[in-house]
């Protein structure tokens, strides 16, 4: 019997030579086309880009021919320059390669069959937990008058690419070729900021690889005149592609929005739609997002809150502890650090005697070093949040457009300023002078007497102050994102400023007041100043919260939806934070008033300390809520895929440990 066993392989070798397009002499399909992509034998019409007349401008007034608006001074300014796809120097044969292209989606036709998604995954080798293109859906009506509308969405290669502008590393490029917005994963350091600003969930942050990648428009196929892989794979005749504003053959509508699609005015996305079938007045999402879409009198569908989890308030305190912890720590420490420096320094500049004295004391250096340490720790936290922390230095590459780059740059300058101040303070610092004298036999004051140290400290200090304010300003600007209405609000600014003041007052107050106490000086004046700043900080934060609550309660968008989650899933934690803040403001104000009226003695420092520490706790809850709650203006998901609720569940029960589940396990 052994004989037959061994001849297994030879039994079953192919009897017929398989079809081999390269072997057949003529490949007419490839003729006249560049070598970027091998056109299939007997390729069908649906796969080729059509030859249609092209409009001069799109509906927003932008030129469709992008060559004319390309920035000058590029390497090869002429029309026929190579894109160097995979370093291939050949120039694409597509005659319209410098025109803005875009997807066309016939929502009437999509059957939700996932062919586009799988064609994309196959071509781009994306793992199961990632996708450049995703199909979600909205549904409405009542059985049997039920309507489901599937939406297939990838990158819209926008006229105003907020991802490109937001990216601190300049990993993004908008090419004159096809208007493609391409991202280089090897430049990306995985901060995920582009995934915050994009309203369509196009950039994909891979938590496993720690970097972002996204739809590349299949520019290799475009170069030879073929439509992207997803379009060519479409089985419902729903997806199409071409020069923007061109309506495909057999289609009669070319509009910019459908139910579930975010406001196109945010980025002027290069996608057009046909959706002629009537939909029910209300369309719901199958995923866990508390958003549905309601038709207004103009026939447009706008997001409204969908109270999916009822109205009951919960604590969910443990859920405040999330993957965003480094950002909670980063922002709080950075803001506090700015406050720690700003309060005594500006106070001294404004001529507060006690603070002028303090700044000239030996304790000024420890205060600056505290500031520096807090900032450094904060920056370290922000770096640890990156997918690729070792690429942190790329964070300033896009100062021209990115608020995040500017935030980082501001904070870096702030740290540098603190460092310089510390350096300039060394020669006049009592302890340093002592140590230098004893160990190295150096007389520092003597050595540096020609340097205008006091002026240097003052000038550097002003510079540092400005850098700190700029850092704080752009930290706030990072969150003023149209795609995240929960953040895109005054509340972000008030919270950041307020925390800077209230937390900064605590730390600098402790250092300054304890110094004055040791020096046996009067602390009444500074205590009043720190207490006032502390209270002001909390009041600013409180006002922001009141306005936020007032407006979001009336906002029928993703911001309102996030607020709904804040008031239900985290309802009790949210209230606790608000009550604590209110209590703190009232208690502190009473305390300060009594102090100013000399009813009580300023020696109630311990009470102040307790209140200030309570405020730290409040600030942490507040900031954790800030990050956990944000709901982006993103595309509807499906029941499993692109459903945050299911992803969380899959992680909780261990289903995510199987890579075929398509949920990155995150541990």
């Amino acid at each position, binding site marked *: 019997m052994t004989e037959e066993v061994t001849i297994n392989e030879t039994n079953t070798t192919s009897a017929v030579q398989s079809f081999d397009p390269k072997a057949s002499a003529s490949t007419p399909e490839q003729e006249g086309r560049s070598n970027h992509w091998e056109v299939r034998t007997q390729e069908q019409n649906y796969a080729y880009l059509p030859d249609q007349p092209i409009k001069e401008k799109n509906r927003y007034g932008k030129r469709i021919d992008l060559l004319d608006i390309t920035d000058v001074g590029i390497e090869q300014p002429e029309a026929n320059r190579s894109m160097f796809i995979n370093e291939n120097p050949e120039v694409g044969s597509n005659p319209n390669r410098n025109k803005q292209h875009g997807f066309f989606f016939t929502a009437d036709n999509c059957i939700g069959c996932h062919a586009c*998604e799988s064609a994309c995954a196959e071509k781009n080798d994306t*793992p199961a*937990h990632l996708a450049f293109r995703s199909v979600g859906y909205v549904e409405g009506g009542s059985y049997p008058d039920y309507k489901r509308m599937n939406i297939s969405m990838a990158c819209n290669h926008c006229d105003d690419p907020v991802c490109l502008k937001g990216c601190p590393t300049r990993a993004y490029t908008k090419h004159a070729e096809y208007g493609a917005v391409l991202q280089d994963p090897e430049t990306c350091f995985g901060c995920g900021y582009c995934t915050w600003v994009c309203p369509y969930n196009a950039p994909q942050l891979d938590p496993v690889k720690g970097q972002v990648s996204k739809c590349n428009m299949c520019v290799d196929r475009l170069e030879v005149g073929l439509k992207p892989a997803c379009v060519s794979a479409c089985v419902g005749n729903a997806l199409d592609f071409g020069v923007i504003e061109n309506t495909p053959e057999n289609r009669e509508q070319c509009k910019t929005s459908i139910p579930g699609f975010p406001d196109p005015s945010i980025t002027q996305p290069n996608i057009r739609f046909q959706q002629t079938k009537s939909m029910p007045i209300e369309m719901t999402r199958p995923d866990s997002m508390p958003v549905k879409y309601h038709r207004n009198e103009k026939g447009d569908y706008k997001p409204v809150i969908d109270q999916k989890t009822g109205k009951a308030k919960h604590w969910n305190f443990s859920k405040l502890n999330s993957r965003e912890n480094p950002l909670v720590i980063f922002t709080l420490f950075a803001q506090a650090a700015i406050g720690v420096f700003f309060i005594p320094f500006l106070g001294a500049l404004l001529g507060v005697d006690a603070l002028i004295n303090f700044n000239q004391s030996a304790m000024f250096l420890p205060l600056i070093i505290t500031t520096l340490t807090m900032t450094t720790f904060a920056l370290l936290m922000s770096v640890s949040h990156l997918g690729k922390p070792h690429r942190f230095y790329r964070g300033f590459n896009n100062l021209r457009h990115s608020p995040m780059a500017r935030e980082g740059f501001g904070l870096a300058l702030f740290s540098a300023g603190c460092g310089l101040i510390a350096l300039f303070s060394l020669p006049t610092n009592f302890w340093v002078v002592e140590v230098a004298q004893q160990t190295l036999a150096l007389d520092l004051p003597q050595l540096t007497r020609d340097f205008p140290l006091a002026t240097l400290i003052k000038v550097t200090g002003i510079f540092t102050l400005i850098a700190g304010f700029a850092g704080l300003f752009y930290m706030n600007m990072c969150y003023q994102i149209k795609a995240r209405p929960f953040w895109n609000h005054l509340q972000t600014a008030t919270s950041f400023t307020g925390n800077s003041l209230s937390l900064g007052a605590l730390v600098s107050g402790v250092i300054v007041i304890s110094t004055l106490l040791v020096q046996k000086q009067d602390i009444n004046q500074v205590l009043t100043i720190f207490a006032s700043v502390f209270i002001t900080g909390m009041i600013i934060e409180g006002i922001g919260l009141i306005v936020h609550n007032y407006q979001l309660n009336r906002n029928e968008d993703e911001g309102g939806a996030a607020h709904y989650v804040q008031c239900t899933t985290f309802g009790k934690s949210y209230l606790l934070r608000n009550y604590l803040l209110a209590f703190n403001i009232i208690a502190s104000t009473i305390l300060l008033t009594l102090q100013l009226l000399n009813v009580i003695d300023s020696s109630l420092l311990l009470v102040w300390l307790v209140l200030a520490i309570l405020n730290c706790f409040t600030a942490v809850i507040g900031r954790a809520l800030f990050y956990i709650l944000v709901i982006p203006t993103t595309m509807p998901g499906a029941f499993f895929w692109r459903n945050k609720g299911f992803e969380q569940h899959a992680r909780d029960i261990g289903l995510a440990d199987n890579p075929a589940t398509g949920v990155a396990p995150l541990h």
Partner: protein
Amino acid sequence: MLFGRKKRKPITIPQKKVKEWKYTTCNYCSTGCSIEIGLGEDNKIVTSRGHAGADVNRGKLCIKGILEHELFTSPGRGTEPLIRDKHFEEFEQTTWDNALDVTATKIKEIQQKYGRDAFAVVSTGQLLTEEFYTLGKLTRGCIGTNNYDGNTTLCMASAVSGYKRSFGADGPPGCYDDFEHTHCFMAFGSNLPEQHPIIYWRLKEALEKRKFPLIVVDPRVTMLAQFADIHLPITPGTDCVLINSMMHVIINEGLQDTAYIDAHTQGFDEIKALVQDYDPKVAQHECGIDEDTIRNVARLYANAPAAMSIWTMGINQSTHGSDGVANINNLNLITGNIGKPGGTSLSITGQCNAMGTREWSSCSGLPGYRYLENADDRQEIADYWGIDPEFFPKQRGMAQTDIFPAIETGEIKGMWLVATNPMTSMPNTSRIRKMLESLDFLVVQDVYRDVETNQYSHVYFPASVWSEKEGCHTNTERRVNLISKIVPCFANSKPDLWIFNQMAKRFENGKKIKFPDKAEDVFNEMKELSKGQSYGRPRNLDISGMSYEKIIKARGIQWPYRDTDEGLKGTPRLYSDGIFPTKSGKANLIPVKFFNNNEQPCNDYPFWLNSGRVVEHFHTRTRTGKIGNCNKFSPTPYMEMNPDAALALGIEHMSYVRLTSRRGDAVVMVQLTQRVAQNMVFIPFHFHDCVNRLTLGLLDPYSRQPAFKQCSVRIQPVDQAEAARLNVERRSY
């Protein structure tokens, strides 16, 4: 570059660097799409693409086909033969020789002790036609058991039975090109966008060129139902009432094609008499479709110059499956819609080679649509194989769904399961589990070692899959297409053809019958057997003109394709001449009387339970459950439930519930959607230890196909943490 960039960033797009494209056909469903697999420099698979020049799919593929080339190395594949004495012991690795020897010895022991039929063979619709034919030769010619069937009993048996009763032989008479010519399209219990996306695309292409009415009969608002011009949300299991009622309208209003009926059918008077009991006024109360709609649809269908019907499991998987098919045939026969462009009765088949097993496996008879009951057929095959015709039984034995219960009664003691997973796929899992547990000997031959049924096997044969082997498929439109061997067999797995051939050597008749090693030599045998006549007319199932070379050149050829035929076209439609393979040459009009024997929703079990397929999964997920980019779209079982019904029971979206039926229970996650009626739930059938723990599966009297889609359940709350744990534990992929 815009936005101020001057220096270019590298553009890196994965390059597949294909050295050679190899032709093959998809191994999932019966659409029969042509695929080219791209091999890289080291002859490893790097990519695949639809063949743009293939008439079936014209370059398109569905999600499963696009990702199919990833399955060769997926987890859980069988690497070596395994053996054990008792099912509760651990497997030990063994040699092919030993595994085959032990199996052959056990088969013979059981047959000696309990009779030849005490050992059953149950195969599949997944093998290649040459393998089916060889398995038939082995089972009918060497092992000699009459209890031999395929799992096609779970999907296509009703279509086969209905075709045979109406037309005299199996074989779908239409083709996809009919979409281009039809003037009225009616789908019964068929959800093309989800089950057969490429066939849907062909339909959509036809609709974009020329609008024609789309009528969909389905209790659930599927995508196809939503896109229909007229959707008939029928009461489950009552299709025969609807069709009878439509025929009542057609016949009583004189809309039938009398000339066609007279020339090509027999039995019209009986039909005419029967349908008088199905006045739409009465029928509407039974089938849930109002009388106006029934009349409207009936007139539309009858008045169309060409009208066609398709159906899938909504018809087949019911207690009136065979009758349903016969009744659809009745509808098309009385309106003259058989064998003409755009006018047909087209069963949309399930498995990739369900047709191949129907044609050549000898499950229900002898190869090439021959019958055991026919002495000439027995003689012809016995002569061709070189054995005594008396070795053949004179009547077909049990179907799969009768073989399993025969384990309970002790008639069946041993079984060979080939590429089928009854532990997940058959109704009433707990009953199947008990049956498999009690077998004296079970051999499982499958691509995957972790196929759930393997829990109860004594010997496991690791089989090769898809393009690790070579051979043919026949698709829904009778198109024979080729699977090429492109990659070496995985580990020590073997092609099923090789396994059958080796087994044959261990039986007496195996030494008399020729068992060619090469697939094309087997194909040539089938070609020979496909020639000739039946009832004095040339056989329809004639593939004598085909060769692998021609098939690959034509990217599939539709039978009949005789050795005298010129060109590569084949025959798109059967019965275009109005001559049917019955004794009289006329088609039978079969009166179908409806009786409702389904388990109905009641106070204790108030919901209809419906089951079906989702696009990203195939059958019991042994393949698609392991390909992440398929599986992620439904990685865990779920149930569609109406939100209004859920509200009444306090059930929330995305929570778990426990379902109970008179058979058992299942835990599923709830997806609330108005797609289903208030008194119905829908659960995909792909998941192990799930919906089939609940199903009843009453058998169709003709086809023995189970009614998967009609039974009743109760919905109960369940501890969410416990349910989540069960959900993860109940299946390993």
